[in-house]
Every structure is written in structure tokens, then in C-alpha cells.
């Protein structure tokens, strides 16, 4: 794990209309580290991800990725980012290979045929590489968007419930991919609702409640039920 954090968030506030969704949130994520972000529905998890992904401007406070401020210098942040959000960013009428080619070209990468084939094979989509994405299941679309992200070899990965809707085999496979990315030095921030095996990847757990980080603890040996208890204590107490 590298020393100084790649992702630094300090005293972040975001107001929608009259509602203070984020209110003085601070969080750091180091390279090679994965942080699981837990929190009740509407606690602001997705808002935090969107701010870090330079999609939403914070009302106050700062968030930097590799030293670049996400609000003031989004252009220098974006090449470092890999975002796997609810929307899988796939065009149904294009094939998997065409989708990948489009996003890599748009991202300014010079991925040639073999890179694309390797990425597709990496996510186990090589057999359906030339099938229309319209025929894909949610899990397959998720794997395609992960292939897109890995092509760019991001330094920071923002994942919004990556494990949702995946079967056991796909979850195990995704876990290995995320471990590999962590090993390569990328910082991972993963929003999740479940306490089960998904958290295996996480080195730290952060609970978001009341617009702030209510708990930030290394996962260590915590089993699913300990996490459940800790979450219940911190997440509910401030609602």
C-alpha cells in the first residue's frame, strides 16, 4: 500500500435544494487499498462517488485525486478514473467488441484488435465478443463495463454496487479481478449494501451516515455479523 493517499476528501459538503446530503465528509483511500462504503439508502454514497467522478460539483470542501482537484481540474482527474456505475455505459445495438473499441477510442487509448480481444477474454466474454450487447444479461454487461475500465488501467476505481445482480460464479470472478487491480496499485472505492463475501476485497470499511463518515475501521477479521452490528450501531444512530 503506498504511503500518501491517492484519493483525499476533506470536509466535503453537498446541498441539494434544502437537503444537506454530505456535510463535512472526510475520507482517504491509498493506492493498492480498497475501501467499502456502507450506508443507508440516500445517505449520500452515490453522491460522493459522483463528486469524485467529476460528475457533480461539491457545494463546499475539497476532493482531490492524485493531487488534482475534482471540481477545479476535472480534465486532469478523468484520465485516472475507472467508473463502474449503475448504468453500464453500453450501446445495445453495438457488439461487445464495438462497445469496447468505441470507449477506448473516446478515452484516447490506442487499443488495437489484440488489446480488445485480450480485455474481452479477460472478462470471459471472448465467445460473445461479436454478439449484440442487447442479448447480454446484467452480469455480462457489468463484465463488459469492467473490461472497459481495465483497458484504461485506472489509478482510481469508483464502483457503485459492482456485485449487485451477479451470480456466485461471477462474484468470485469479480473479486479476483478487483484483487488484481488492487495489487497493481489502484485505489478502489466501492459502494455496497451487502455484508457478505463482497467485503472480502475491502481493506477498510467506512460507514456513511448523517452526511459524514460515522465509522472508518480496518476490516481485519470482522465477519459478516460483526460488520452488521457495527453498521447497525453507526448507520441507524444518527438517522
Amino acid at each position, binding site marked *: 500500500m503506498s504511503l500518501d493517499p491517492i484519493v483525499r476528501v476533506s470536509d466535503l459538503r453537498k*446541498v441539494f*435544494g*434544502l437537503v444537506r446530503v454530505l456535510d463535512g465528509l472526510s475520507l482517504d483511500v491509498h493506492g493498492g487499498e480498497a475501501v467499502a462504503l456502507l450506508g443507508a439508502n440516500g445517505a449520500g454514497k452515490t453522491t460522493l462517488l459522483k463528486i469524485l467522478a467529476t460528475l457533480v*460539483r461539491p457545494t463546499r470542501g475539497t476532493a482531490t485525486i492524485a493531487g488534482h482537484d475534482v471540481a477545479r481540474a476535472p480534465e486532469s482527474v478523468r484520465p485516472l478514473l475507472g467508473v463502474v456505475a449503475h448504468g453500464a455505459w453500453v450501446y445495445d445495438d453495438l457488439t461487445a467488441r464495438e462497445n469496447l473499441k468505441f470507449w477506448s477510442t473516446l478515452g484516447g487509448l490506442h487499443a488495437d484488435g489484440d488489446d480488445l480481444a485480450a480485455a474481452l477474454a479477460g472478462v470471459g466474454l471472448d465467445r460473445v465478443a461479436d454478439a449484440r450487447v442487447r442479448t447480454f444479461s446484467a452480469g455480462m454487461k457489468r463484465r463488459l463495463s469492467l473490461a472497459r475500465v481495465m483497458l484504461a488501467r485506472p489509478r482510481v476505481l469508483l464502483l457503485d454496487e459492482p456485485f449487485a445482480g451477479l451470480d456466485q460464479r461471477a462474484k468470485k470472478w469479480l473479486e479476483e479481478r478487483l484483487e488484481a487491480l488492487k495489487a497493481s496499485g489502484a485505489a478502489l472505492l466501492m459502494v455496497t449494501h451487502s455484508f457478505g463475501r463482497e467485503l472480502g476485497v475491502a481493506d477498510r470499511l467506512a460507514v456513511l451516515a448523517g452526511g459524514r463518515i460515522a465509522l472508518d475501521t480496518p476490516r481485519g477479521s470482522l465477519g459478516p455479523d460483526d460488520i452488521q452490528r457495527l453498521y447497525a450501531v453507526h448507520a441507524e444512530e444518527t438517522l
Partner: protein
Amino acid sequence: MVRTLGWLTVAGLLAGLVMAFGVAPREVTQGNVQRIMYVHVPLILASYLAFGVLALASIVYLIRRDAVADRVAHASGEVGVMFVGLGIATGSIWGKPTWGTWWTWDARLTSVAILFVMYLGYLLLRGTIDDPERAARYCAVLGIVAALDIPLVHFSVYWWRTLHQPPSLMKPGGFTGSSAILWPLLVNLLAFVLLYAYFVARRIRLLCAEAEAAA
């Protein structure tokens, strides 16, 4: 400051009225109905000023993302649309006795009507977007595109009209530019520019207060 501007405006408007009805001569061909010019022309020229300020404020906003610049654009757009709308109304009221019809596709009235619809769209866009930051950005872009479009509108409408009917420069029915008409016109123009400035200042103050109340 705004209060003094207010009184100055009132003085200007009164002076304008005195000039328009007292000093200005009774126009030879049209009779007294020509006095409508002293409110019709200043309204339209002041609205052009408003749309110019709107474009400049939009450019400043895009460069510095300064919320005040956006409010200047917003206020200027609102007052501009009101002025140009009144300009059209007074123009057609003036046209009725002069040409016998409420509306003629005269070059100047047509291009002014197009501006009115274009900047009405600006206000509609501003009203439709809830998030203030996004509304400011989109309206700034529209403000600039609309301003760049004004010369194109003028050329196209004038060429479209001049092929059939001589262009009427300042007002319907030709323009006998004598100094007796010029002075009242200039005084009224100054009065309406002051009025524009006063309304924009009040509106900006209101927008700032609304923003503070929301924060």
C-alpha cells in the same frame, strides 16, 4: 445607490415626457401619433443594450463562473424581453393609424419580433432547469448564440424585405430626421437606459437575496 438611480430614472422619464409632448413639434405628415416614436424607439434600443449586456455577462460567467455575472445576465434578459415586447406593442399601436393595420412585416418590426421570441426562449430555458449552476451555464451559452445571431437576423430580414418594400429605418412610414425630433428622442433614450439600469440593479439584488435565502 439603487435609490438614487431610481430617482434619477424618474427625473429622466419626466423630462422625456416633457420633451416628447412639449418640445417636440407636431409631425407634418403623421400628426401627433408620431409622438409614439419617443417611447417606441428608446424601448427597442434599450432592449438591444440589454441583450448586449446579457451576452457580455454570459461570456464573463463562462470564464470566471461568477454567480453575479449570471444574475446580471438573468436580470438583463428579463428586462430586455419586457422592453422589446413593449417596443413591439407600441410599434403596432403606432402602425394602426399610419398603415391601417396592427401588424406589417416591416423589416424592423419583424427582426424585433424574432428577438422577442428568441429571448423569450432564454427565459423559458432558465425557468425549466432547476439546478441553478446548470441553468447558468446553459443560459450563458444560449445568451452568446442569440447575440451572435442578431446581425444574421437583421441582414436576412432586411434583404428579405428590401426586395419588395423600401426599408423603414427608424420607425414605420419613413423617418424625417430633423433636430427638433432628435433631442426629445435622445432624452427619452437616456431615460429608458436609466430605467433599464435601475430595473436590472433591483432584480440583481432580488436574485442575490433569493440565493442567500436558499443557501
